[in-house]
């Protein structure tokens, strides 16, 4: 895609800014300011890795799996949205041991879990939107998935 393809979008955006008819809502600015607290200095960011064919298909209320990999860890993250609630379940492989903590983060809150012996974890009832899973390991850098957008 060339630069020219984006120019109309940006020109329209400039017109809208100058018109002042649609200013950025206060809650959007507040969320932006709050995002700074979500940084994890030194964390290893896990990018999406390939999953098998068909797994990415999704429909209302059915789980979707995402695989992330970094620093020798694989994080399989399964997300389900139903009734405007987000449930996250998954597995860290190889299992990180009882001293590790799995944190499932949304911009507004985080929930920590001790993974099972097999590396499984689950957090239910989160608000839909952006979510990230972090594996905190003793004596090693945390591994965080890239932020994932999940809505119906």
């Amino acid at each position: 895609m060339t630069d020219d393809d984006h120019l109309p979008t940006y020109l329209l955006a400039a017109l809208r800014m100058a018109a002042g008819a649609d200013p950025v809502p206060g809650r959007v600015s507040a969320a932006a300011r709050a995002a700074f607290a979500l940084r994890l200095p030194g964390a290893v960011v896990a990018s999406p890795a390939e999953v098998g064919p068909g797994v990415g298909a999704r429909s209302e209320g059915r789980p979707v799996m995402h695989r992330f990999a970094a620093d020798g860890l694989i994080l399989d993250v399964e997300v389900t949205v139903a009734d405007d609630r987000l449930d996250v379940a998954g597995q860290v492989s190889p299992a990180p041991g009882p001293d590790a903590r799995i944190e499932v983060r949304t911009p507004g809150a985080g929930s920590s879990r001790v993974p099972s012996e097999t590396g499984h974890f689950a957090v239910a009832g989160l608000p839909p939107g952006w979510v990230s899973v972090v594996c905190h390991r003793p004596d090693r850098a945390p591994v965080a998935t890239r932020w994932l957008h999940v809505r119906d």
Partner: protein
Amino acid sequence: MHSEKTFPGLDQAAWEELVTRFDGRMWAVARACGLGPADAADAVQGAWLRMVESLDGIRDPERIGAWLITTTRHEAVRLARRSRGERPAADALPDVPVPDPAASVVDAEFGRRLWLRLDGLAEPCRSLLRLYALNPDAKYAQISMRLGLPMGSIGPTRSRCVSRLRALIEEER
């Protein structure tokens, strides 16, 4: 090439300064991509989260504004595709983008110059672009009724009108 210095002195206050400078531009870009308020809010928040996860790798603070605007456009395009029912393979996440050079036009002062030039456009361009800029949630059907244009021609006409506006601006340079 990027310089090798890492992001200097980024604390909460510096971050909030970035928010003040750029969140209005990011919002305008998400809306200009055709997103409604809820999706636009998600796209803007997504761009800030991409910045949070990319902080260790940001090498060029000078271009952070263009990076934020470009990232907002990427996230907005992904959300727009999804709301149309398209599903990119395995929800492919974009890599950290290279800033679009055109991102610098997203500026209220430049927008005011565009408005002055808009009056020099013939119809239906003048009315169509005014309508788009002033009514962010305008639907094709409403525009079609107000301007007496066939619904199917709104998209192509808008592209043509933006191209004309752009040609006028380039003459000015």
